[in-house]
């Protein structure tokens, strides 16, 4: 990933720190002070093809109270993100210097720095609401925890326009790294929680449901506040699982009846309550949720359990849990949510994640007691809805091409702006399929892209949640029907084998597509051999 960092002050100490956090990132710095021109001048470095993200670190005191500068910067940002929809722009909000010689009048002064600060920040936030490729790094994240007293560095400001001391740059590098990880879909997906000493204080098996520490007073409130943060994270699309050595009936009672529990059974996508060792539990959770262990984060107050997981399942992230309950809520936000589950924005499809996985399990249950696939599918009462070139589905469609690894024939990834371009171009038909059944609404679960000019299916993929229910067959039928309607005599599709999509290699052949050769190079994911096999079907 190539970054360009622009700032109105000297931020060169960031260079080493960013490369330390993310060795793969290639970071360039603009000349400090030069922030408007690079955003509006198409011949500047920000407009070169290889730039993936532009980071704008804005110093409040320099930006505000400088005539029209703040408004110009905002307009320049808007212009840039409109012209370069393929580039992520990260901008900080700004802080005015509250300590002015105008004293208290600084805040009431019309057009003063405080008014300018609020106008700039609101403008930036509103732009981010409307524009998918704008991310906001709130200045509060860079200042509040460490405090200005510790950060402001008059020596280096006057020596070389470096406003803040080293901890600010550490904080800045940490947050930029997290933000880029979110952008690259590298966040983890599952939080596995222990119960005793983690979700509540005390030991359920010894203290009983009435004796555990959980409430609105004293140490009990620490755990309740931690639960509130966990529920917030769960609502943002993270799956929550429970791994606890306890009697299942006792645990069920607490989750169902304890008046102070904020984490409710509905929030939990999967349970492992019993006496298995936790490594076995987590490995089986990964299988149940069809997710890799590198998607998991494990919270447990017991250092022995943490060590066991760290050794047995090294891909699972195992943060150290503070021993003092009063530190739990703040620690969770900073060292768990920000560290492992960074997110740039919450999509509608994120909100129902847990319901989708729970419905998935109930379907699996039905499947286990059935032998006849056809009757199973019938009992599921599946309803599929196809949409062609629906621009409201742009983000979800792009997200699916980015994230789907298993049932993905061509393994081509598209950014939202590329999907948007194809939707508005008659040459392409972007087909999505939405899935509902008696257990719930899965939303969009499949995408196919038809290039009518090249008579080619350039993308064909299906969420692993609905594999095995003939959705893929219906989607393929729909694509063939569209191609026929547009008068195409035949279609081709290049299947690119990776480490994870081997099981779909026979799919096209099973539906009367014939191999017609191998392509020289595939869409090379780097994970497989990258070579493509061309399939063809005559539609006449």
């Amino acid at each position, binding site marked *: 990933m190539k970054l360009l960092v622009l700032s109105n002050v000297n931020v*060169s*100490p960031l260079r*080493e720190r960013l490369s330390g956090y993310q060795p793969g990132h290639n970071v360039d710095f603009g000349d400090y002070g030069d922030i408007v021109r690079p955003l509006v001048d198409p011949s500047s470095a920000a407009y070169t093809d290889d730039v993936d993200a532009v980071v704008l670190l804005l110093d409040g005191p320099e930006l505000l109270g400088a005539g029209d500068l703040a408004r110009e910067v905002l307009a320049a940002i808007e212009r840039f993100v409109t012209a370069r929809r393929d580039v992520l722009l990260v901008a900080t909000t700004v802080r005015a210097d509250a300590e002015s010689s105008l004293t208290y009048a600084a805040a009431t002064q019309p057009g003063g720095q405080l008014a300018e600060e609020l106008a700039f920040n609101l403008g930036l936030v509103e732009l981010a609401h409307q524009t998918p490729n704008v991310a906001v790094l709130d200045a509060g994240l860079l200042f509040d925890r460490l405090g200005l007293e510790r950060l402001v*560095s008059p020596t*280096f400001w006057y*020596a070389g326009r*470096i406003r803040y001391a080293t901890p600010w740059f550490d904080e800045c590098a940490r947050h930029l790294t997290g933000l880029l990880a979110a952008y690259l879909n590298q966040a983890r997906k599952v939080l596995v929680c222990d119960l005793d000493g983690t979700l509540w204080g005390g030991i359920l098996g010894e203290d009983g449901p009435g004796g555990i520490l959980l409430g609105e007073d004293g140490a009990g409130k620490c755990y309740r506040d931690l639960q509130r943060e966990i529920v917030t994270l769960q609502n943002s699309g993270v799956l929550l699982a429970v791994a606890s050595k306890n009697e299942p009936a006792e645990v069920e009672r607490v989750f169902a009846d304890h008046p102070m529990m904020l984490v409710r059974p509905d929030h939990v996508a999967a349970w492992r309550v019993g006496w298995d060792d936790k490594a076995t539990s987590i490995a089986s959770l990964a299988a149940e949720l069809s997710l890799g262990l590198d998607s998991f984060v494990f919270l447990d107050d017991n250092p022995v359990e943490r060590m066991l997981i760290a050794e047995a399942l090294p891909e699972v992230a195992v943060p150290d849990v503070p021993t003092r309950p009063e530190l739990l809520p703040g620690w969770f936000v900073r060292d768990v949510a920000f560290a492992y589950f960074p997110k740039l924005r919450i999509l509608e499809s994120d909100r129902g994640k847990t319901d989708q996985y729970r419905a998935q399990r109930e379907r699996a249950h039905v499947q286990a007691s059935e032998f006849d696939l056809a009757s199973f599918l019938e009992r599921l009462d599946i309803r599929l809805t196809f949409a062609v070139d629906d621009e409201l589905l742009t983000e979800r469609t792009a997200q699916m091409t980015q994230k789907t690894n298993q049932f993905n024939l061509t393994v081509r990834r598209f950014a939202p702006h590329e999907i948007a371009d194809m939707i508005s171009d008659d040459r392409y038909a972007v087909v999505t399929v939405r899935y509902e059944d008696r257990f719930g609404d899965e939303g969009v679960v499949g995408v196919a892209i038809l290039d009518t000019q090249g008579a080619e299916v350039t993308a064909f993929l299906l969420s692993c949640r609905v594999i095995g229910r003939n959705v893929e067959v219906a989607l393929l039928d729909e694509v063939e029907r569209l191609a026929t309607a547009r008068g195409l005599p035949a279609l081709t599709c290049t299947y690119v084998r990776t480490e994870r999509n081997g099981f779909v290699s026979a799919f096209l052949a099973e539906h009367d597509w014939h191999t017609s050769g191998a392509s020289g190079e595939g869409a090379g994911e780097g994970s497989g051999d990258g070579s493509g096999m061309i399939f063809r079907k005559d539609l006449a």
Partner: protein
Amino acid sequence: MNDQLVDRVADIVSRELRVPRDSIDLSTTSADVENWDSLGHLQVCMAIEGEFGLTLELDLLPELDSVEAIVRHLDAG
């Protein structure tokens, strides 16, 4: 001269200026290292502040232009 201190300072200079550690010793001055320019100098001084938990004065910065000068300042402090 405190050898341990010399090593810590040389580590910082090497890291901040991205030059091999074995090219830095007590006798190294800013004139010997290409990356020890004005920006490099600020980074070395900021790192010294951070690692030793002290605040350097503006007037002092130009004097800290060699490993030895930095070590002497730290030793005296």
